[in-house]
């Protein structure tokens, strides 16, 4: 999920802690009762069945209601005489145009005034992107942007890469614009902000399968439907970051602009947004990265491109080919990210007009010259097949070798993990009675935030327990709990190292970007070949993915500890370890809790993938609902997942201080 700074307003923190102080004793007592209730089954105490799992006759027909509501919205809803789906499809038709234009330009060719034009030849695109790198960055950046495309051509992935590039660019542009707009709206109206926050949580935690059917109905099958699904998942960080960045702009800047006679819109456009831009770039980065993690899912609903290549290769276990295409996704992601950063960081320079004219000329030549030559030299129009290379068979042979050589030792590791970690935790979670879970959540809410938090979290947990998916919910939670613990155990020390050494940090950044954008199926399928499917590969998938925010946010939290305090502690005789344990960690506590929070969110986001390798929790219900034509099942299971994530998020935020005042 989002790896975004959600650092909260510090001013509300003191009140929250004081407010919680009064209720401390009853809250602690309630907590003790809750823990006892949860642990009773472990000591062999039989709970009354009605307290262990809510009896069926008390379970409301949520599933049916949700299914009917969903079918209505997707297929029958009207505004006046006009079908809602006609309106949304009209919108989709508008959004499709820039997408078609870009796709036509780089990949499919365009028809202008009845004349069919071929797409830009590969040297045009490659040279232009290298020049962009050179213009805004350095020779290194030019090598990266040009090199990423050279890789695509070399491995016979040119067309797929161009299609992915086109759809990702449009998705990112759409996501950034929408996110900025919503962010501004939330900045101006705190009430809107409060309404949007839980919506964002839902957008980022509910697996796409739960709402795929309405998306496909409303926006059609193909690039626009895929883009909508991508934007739903990738946009929230942008909106959140925009609001936070605008709040961080000193009030004097806005006031100065207003006094100079700017209208409200001008103040935003000319003063506030430019000042907030550097901070907003992390939002752009996240939209980009998350859009690229969605290319596999997007390929499932009609978006052609690299995702489709990966998926098709893995369907018949051509792992080498899947890896080649997966690496192309990673390279495109890193190149776009670094280019975007270079553009945003560039200070306006007063170069002479002749200089920028030279650049414009260079771009024009790079774009046009290959177009003119292409009809005469076919190798320029199409990358010749015999220039392509493939390492696929080499990789396949390595995987087969590994399968023979490492399956034994790896299986011992798996056996150990299963017997001592997975099975006991699973049994523990499955034994927790619903009454214990609800009480525990409410007690923690009371302790950390107050009665409002207790009530809202308790009610959400009650829904999870009473919606008819209690056992799948426990299975999802068990997997999340183990993976988050492991991800933090691995990620936090790495984050520590990143904070300490800039060089380690630079290397780690490439690793993390790769992890975030390489489709996880590329490494999961070999793991399944070696170890079989089920919970163990699922655990690996979640841990690998959720380590990213653990590292990033830990490093970030430690880096922002004020240097003078650390220095003062050192001068007053604190040893290195004392300084770390007694000064740095307490000061970084809110940031570290944020790391935990984001790791949990990311883990929830990954459940959508584990459903595809055979886990049986809520995520599996959202997947099954699709093929059983039972949309209610998917929606309710998805809602239960979102509630679980929101409960954990709110409790952790309250623990970090700050958000506790929030309802």
């Amino acid at each position, binding site marked *: 999920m989002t790896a975004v700074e959600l650092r909260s307003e510090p001013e509300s923190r003191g009140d929250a802690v004081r407010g919680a102080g009064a209720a401390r004793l009853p809250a602690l007592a309630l907590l003790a009762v809750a823990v006892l209730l949860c642990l009773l089954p472990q000591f062999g105490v039989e709970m009354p069945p009605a307290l262990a799992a809510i009896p069926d006759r008390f379970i409301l027909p949520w599933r049916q209601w949700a299914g009917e509501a969903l079918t209505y919205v997707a297929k029958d809803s009207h505004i006046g005489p006009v079908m809602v789906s006609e309106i949304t499809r009209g919108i989709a038709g508008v959004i499709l145009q820039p997408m078609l234009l870009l796709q036509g330009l780089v*990949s*499919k*060719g365009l028809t202008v005034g009845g004349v*069919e034009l*071929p*797409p830009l*030849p590969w040297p045009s695109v490659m040279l232009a992107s290298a020049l962009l790198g050179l213009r805004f960055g350095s020779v290194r950046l030019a090598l990266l942007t040009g090199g990423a495309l050279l890789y695509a051509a070399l491995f016979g992935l040119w*067309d797929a890469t161009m299609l992915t590039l086109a759809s990702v660019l449009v998705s990112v542009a759409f996501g950034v614009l929408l996110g900025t707009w919503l962010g501004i709206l939330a900045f101006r109206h705190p009430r809107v902000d409060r309404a949007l926050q839980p919506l964002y949580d839902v957008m980022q935690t509910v697996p796409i399968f739960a709402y*795929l*059917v309405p998306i*496909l*109905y409303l926006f*059609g*099958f*193909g690039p626009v439907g895929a883009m909508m699904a991508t934007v739903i998942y990738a946009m929230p960080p942008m909106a959140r970051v925009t609001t936070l960045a605008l709040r961080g702009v000193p009030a004097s800047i806005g006031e100065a602009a207003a006094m100079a006679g700017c209208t409200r819109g001008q103040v935003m456009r000319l003063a506030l947004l430019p000042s907030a831009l550097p901070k907003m770039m992390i939002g752009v980065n996240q939209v980009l990265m998350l859009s690229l993690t969605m290319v596999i899912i997007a*390929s*499932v*609903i*009609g*978006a*052609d491109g690299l995702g*489709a290549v990966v*998926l*098709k290769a*893995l*369907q*018949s*276990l051509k792992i080498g080919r899947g890896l080649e295409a997966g690496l192309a996704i990673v390279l495109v992601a890193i190149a776009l990210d670094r280019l975007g950063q270079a553009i945003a960081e560039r200070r306006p320079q007063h170069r002479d007009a002749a200089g920028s004219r030279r650049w414009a000329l260079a771009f024009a030549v790079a774009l046009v010259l290959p177009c003119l030559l*292409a009809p005469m030299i*076919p190798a320029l*129009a*199409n990358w010749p097949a015999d220039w392509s290379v493939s390492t696929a068979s080499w990789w396949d042979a390595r995987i087969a070798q590994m*399968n*023979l050589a490492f*399956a034994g030792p790896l299986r011992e590791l*798996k056996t150990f993990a*299963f*017997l001592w970690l997975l099975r006991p935790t699973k049994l523990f979670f499955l034994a927790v009675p619903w009454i214990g879970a609800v009480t525990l959540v409410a007690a923690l809410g009371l302790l950390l935030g107050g009665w409002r938090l207790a009530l809202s979290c308790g009610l959400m947990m009650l829904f999870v327990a009473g919606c008819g998916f209690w056992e799948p919910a426990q299975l999802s939670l068990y997997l999340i709990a183990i993976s988050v613990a492991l991800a933090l155990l691995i990620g936090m020390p790495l984050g520590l190292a990143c904070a300490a050494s800039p060089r380690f940090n630079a290397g780690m950044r490439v690793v993390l970007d790769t992890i975030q954008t390489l489709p996880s199926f590329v490494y*999961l*399928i070999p793991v*399944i*070949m*070696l*170890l*079989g*499917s*089920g919970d163990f590969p699922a655990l690996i998938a979640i841990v690998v993915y959720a380590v990213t925010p653990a590292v990033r946010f830990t490093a970030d939290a430690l880096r922002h500890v004020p240097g003078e305090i650390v220095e003062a502690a050192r001068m007053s005789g604190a040893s290195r370890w004392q300084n770390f344990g007694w000064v740095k960690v307490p000061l970084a506590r809110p940031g570290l809790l944020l790391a935990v929070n984001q790791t949990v969110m990311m883990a929830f986001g990954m459940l959508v993938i584990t*459903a*595809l*390798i*055979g*886990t*049986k929790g809520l995520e*599996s219900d959202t*997947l*099954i609902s*699709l*093929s*059983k*034509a039972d949309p209610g099942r998917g929606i309710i299971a998805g809602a239960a997942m979102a509630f679980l994530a929101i409960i954990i998020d709110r409790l952790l935020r309250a623990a970090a201080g700050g958000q506790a005042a929030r309802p």
Partner: protein
Amino acid sequence: MSYRKFNTSWMKTLGAAALSATFLAAPQARAADAETASPVRIVVTGITDADFIANVFAGFLEQNGYKVERVKADYAAQFVGLEAGDMDFSTSIWDTSRDIMDAALATGKVQNMGSTGVKIREGWWYPLYVKELCPGLPDWKALLEPACVKALATVESAPKARFVEAPADWTTNNAARLEALKLPFVLEGTGTPAALHAAIVGAVQRKEPVIGWGFMPDWMTEQYPGEFVQFPHFEAACATDPKWGGNPDKVWDCDNPYGYVWKVANTKSEARLPRASRMLRLYHLTAADVAWGIRRVDVDGIESEKAAEEWLKAHPDLVADWAL
């Protein structure tokens, strides 16, 4: 798509125009003209056998002057697209995914265009060497022997044996079958065909004992020597009447039914594409044709569209029948 393709497709249009000018008198050609103006959208799912079936038909339409758009879609998600009219035809609907197919047909927006003629066989599949560990196979009773159960057990499934189950959204009836036939097995979930294949093929490459859900036509059962377990033959009563079969208290004490791969279409597409719809109804292959296609793609490593082209070229007489 690229420059070269643009050239050829352009020439094709020119050629088609010239042809239709020559046969202006023929009403059929004119009808086809109106039809071929907009592209025919056909589902491809990225699964080798399904894509081969789709590409043979797509290639055939292209030979007949149609423009074809191959829409990439997930197997389950395609039904939404077919209902909404985002796709015209799908050529690979398995009998065993009845729930979603029936739901789509019930909306009245999707219609059944008949069988492809490709027979489906699916069930409990094992590589041949498993026979040595479980003497008596392919008869299902061999799976009850303790030695066989032990050989097929894993750390998660012990003391029972492990069965690599199909994705949870496929209708395998295995949970009921385990109960009805008292098979000491645990079903290990996979979530996608890719994971199912990976779990079985990984073990086969190591020559380890394994048993799981297999199906034909499919590249795995094509590429690795193996067999299906023989359960009591399916009869309709077995699925509904507990009294039927060896276990008087349970249903599904039998095999899954055999079936066909079906073709479906969006209901409105027939009005727009009457001739292409007729061709779709007449279109049929055999399981052997599909097996050939799978070998060409997954063993020889050529593109599915190319393999389909080859097949069309090699069977002009069969192909001509679909255009009658």
